[in-house]
């Protein structure tokens, strides 16, 4: 046998063991299969198309004032408010002598606020037929206080700097503190007055495939006497802020009457959170439900196409360390989905805006933090879905089952949730990967199952768990 010098490779790898070169290789693989790039494009087109369809199909339906700022949409600021100026620190006292109509949460009482502009900060002390005396602020339900007190009741609201404190009394002498709230930026010259408000009667019907919400505006009324504002401003007249106009401004349901220090206020609509606000951002981005199918298919095929053709052996021969390979595949799939998602979600918002305007709707403001979270979150959502798909594909190794599993996990909870009781549906939306879609929500609705970031976190947790399982299997299994 001839003995000769062993051959030495004349090629020296450029980068020493960099992870970047694996990413580059996986990107080249993705880029060089034309139908994969078409799939990516299809996901963008589908999402934008759905946005345009939904924009074309939705029209303004009156109430709401046309604003689409999610923070504004979340607030209902209606009812009837009769007020005087309040200069600097001071207080307002009144007795609610009777309350009529509107149910357990009908509100009658006192309110201090800096402006009568809708949806501006306020502090309201109220008596209710079913929930006692309450001090509310920030367009939230509940509030400090409680008990079982009903009208007639004495109420006192004092302002000291930015602090507003509420007191109640059965007789106008022995006062009991209800609570205190801070109204930042409350101007020196504020308003103090009486208000009535009442939540709409809302009926929600849920069935498989959707829900219908029907609301009937309720109306309420209350009588006040012993009204005093101090420091008193000589010659200050009572002014009114009623319904914003239209058919609701019927003097039978909205207005003020009275004389000799007695006031009767009538009003309709609530001051508080709007739990039935239209989430126009989410509606515009709803195409993700269809666009994700293309992303899932692409991410799964990036893995299963290699298993099917034995190409995975070539891949593992070129990069024998399983963990790095899996990470590279997941990152490239995720980044590709993120890029497609960014184009699709910004494209949806920008292209749908002119159609929404021509239908009398104000498009959601892109620069609003909540809207931006939904828009960027949609892209991030697709990225995580892609990572999840890669992991499931490694576990399952075959295209059809992998795609089916991922899509079922993402879609089925959302479909069957509508047919289940709300309490069960909530848990379904919290515990399944479908929770990730919460990132698209810009308003907090009555049926919110999970807050946006937490929902996104649930999906991320699923993706990480699947990745861990995929890594373990990839290391153990014969290729």
């Amino acid at each position: 046998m001839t003995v000769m010098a062993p051959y030495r490779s004349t090629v020296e790898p450029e980068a020493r063991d960099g992870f970047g070169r694996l990413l580059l290789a996986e990107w080249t693989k993705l880029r060089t299969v034309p139908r994969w790039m078409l799939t990516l494009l299809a996901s963008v087109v589908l999402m934008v198309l759905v946005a345009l369809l939904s924009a074309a199909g939705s029209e303004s339906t009156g109430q709401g004032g046309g604003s689409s700022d999610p923070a504004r949409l979340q607030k209902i600021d209606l009812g009837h408010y009769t007020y005087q100026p309040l200069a600097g620190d001071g207080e307002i006292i009144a007795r609610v002598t009777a309350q009529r109509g509107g149910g357990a949460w009908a509100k009658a009482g006192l309110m201090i606020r800096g402006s009568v502009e809708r949806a501006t900060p306020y502090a309201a002390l109220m008596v209710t037929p079913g929930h006692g005396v309450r001090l509310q602020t920030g367009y939230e339900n509940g509030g400090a206080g409680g008990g079982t007190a009903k009208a007639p009741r004495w109420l006192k609201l004092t302002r000291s700097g930015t602090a507003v404190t509420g007191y109640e009394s059965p007789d106008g002498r022995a006062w009991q503190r209800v609570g205190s709230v801070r109204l930042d930026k409350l101007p020196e010259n504020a308003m103090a007055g009486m208000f009535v408000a009442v939540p709409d009667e809302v009926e929600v019907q849920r069935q498989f495939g959707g829900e219908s919400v029907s609301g009937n505006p309720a109306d309420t009324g209350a009588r006040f006497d012993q009204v005093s504002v101090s420091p008193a401003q000589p010659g200050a007249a009572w002014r009114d802020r009623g319904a914003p106009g239209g058919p609701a401004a019927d003097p039978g349901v909205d207005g003020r009457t009275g004389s000799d220090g007695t006031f009767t206020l009538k009003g309709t609509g609530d001051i508080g959170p709007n739990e039935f606000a239209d989430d126009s951002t989410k509606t515009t981005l709803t195409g993700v439900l269809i666009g994700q199918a293309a992303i899932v298919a692409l991410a799964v095929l990036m893995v299963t196409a290699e298993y099917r053709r034995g190409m995975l052996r070539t891949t593992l021969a070129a990069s024998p360390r399983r963990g790095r390979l899996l990470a590279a595949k997941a990152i490239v799939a995720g980044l590709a989905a993120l890029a497609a998602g960014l184009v699709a979600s910004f494209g949806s918002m920008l292209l749908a805006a002119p159609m929404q305007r021509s239908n009398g709707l104000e498009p959601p403001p892109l620069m609003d933090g909540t809207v931006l979270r939904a828009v960027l979150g949609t892209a991030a959502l697709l990225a995580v879905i892609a990572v999840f798909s890669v992991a499931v594909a490694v576990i399952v190794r075959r295209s059809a089952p992998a795609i089916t599993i991922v899509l079922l996990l993402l879609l089925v909870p959302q479909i069957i949730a509508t047919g289940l009781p709300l309490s069960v549906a909530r848990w379904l939306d919290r515990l399944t990967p479908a929770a990730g879609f919460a990132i698209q929500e810009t308003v907090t609705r009555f049926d919110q199952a999970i807050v946006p970031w937490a929902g996104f976190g649930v999906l991320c947790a699923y993706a990480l768990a699947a990745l861990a399982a995929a890594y373990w299997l990839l290391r153990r299994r014969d290729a």
Partner: protein
Amino acid sequence: MEATIEVRALRKTYGPTVAVDDLSFTVAPGQVTGFVGPNGAGKSTTMRMIMGLDRPDGGSALIGGKPYRSLRAPLCRIGAMLDASAVHPARRARDHLRWLAQANGLPARRVDEVIDLAGLASAAGRRAGGFSLGMRQRLGIAAALLGDPPVLMFDEPVNGLDPEGITWIRALLRSLAAEGRAVLMSSHLMSELEGGADHLVVIGRGRLIADTAVGELLKAASGDRVELRTAQRQDAMAVLARAGATVSASGPDEVTVAGLTAERVIAALNGAGVGFTGISEHRATLEEAYMELTRDAVEFQGVAGREAR
């Protein structure tokens, strides 16, 4: 780093089936080693374990002293073609080589170099799905050569090729070995290795049957026999038997002589005045040698097959 493949006591089972059983051999640099065995003998399984793709149940396989999974830029250590059709059909040949080069940080010029080396220049821009088997083999060989590695491994590289392709691959492997590389090439047909391999590793049912140089194997199989043609058969047999040979009649005027070289046979016959019309040294073919080697293994397989049923 040494240009070798070392297989040490390698073992792989699939359930109750033993695919590779205590297999040890070394692929040395500077020659083409043929890896031969019938279908199902465990050749591909062994190669996958060498590549770190399948986990051995025992033993180890080392490339230049290291297990495959610990190699950092493996394409520069060992190039392999396990399955020529393992290419995405929608990807262009050049792109297939490009991502492989990127994955190991190899310079982009290597892609063009191996395309030329494998004679793929005219097809590099075409999608691999439209390739003939021969072109796919060339693409697989190009991929194996990307990192200019000192060790090369090919699983059935000539299977299904036309004679021209077989000649090309044989010449290529020879020239690669002549540069000092270790080349391992598997085949289930010994005839494919005839004139192509310098060394043979023969396995059957996962076990090593022979690990030998081709020349020695042929010599052993040929067994120093001489074929003699003569009209005086009886006389010739008597003379040669006296000269110390083992003789047997293999036809009406033919004699097979063992234990004497052709020269000594001629000298003995001339000395005794026995005439002959023809004499030839018997040379076994590689195929015959292989059949002889694997006969036991194949029989054993038959028995085992019946038992399994």
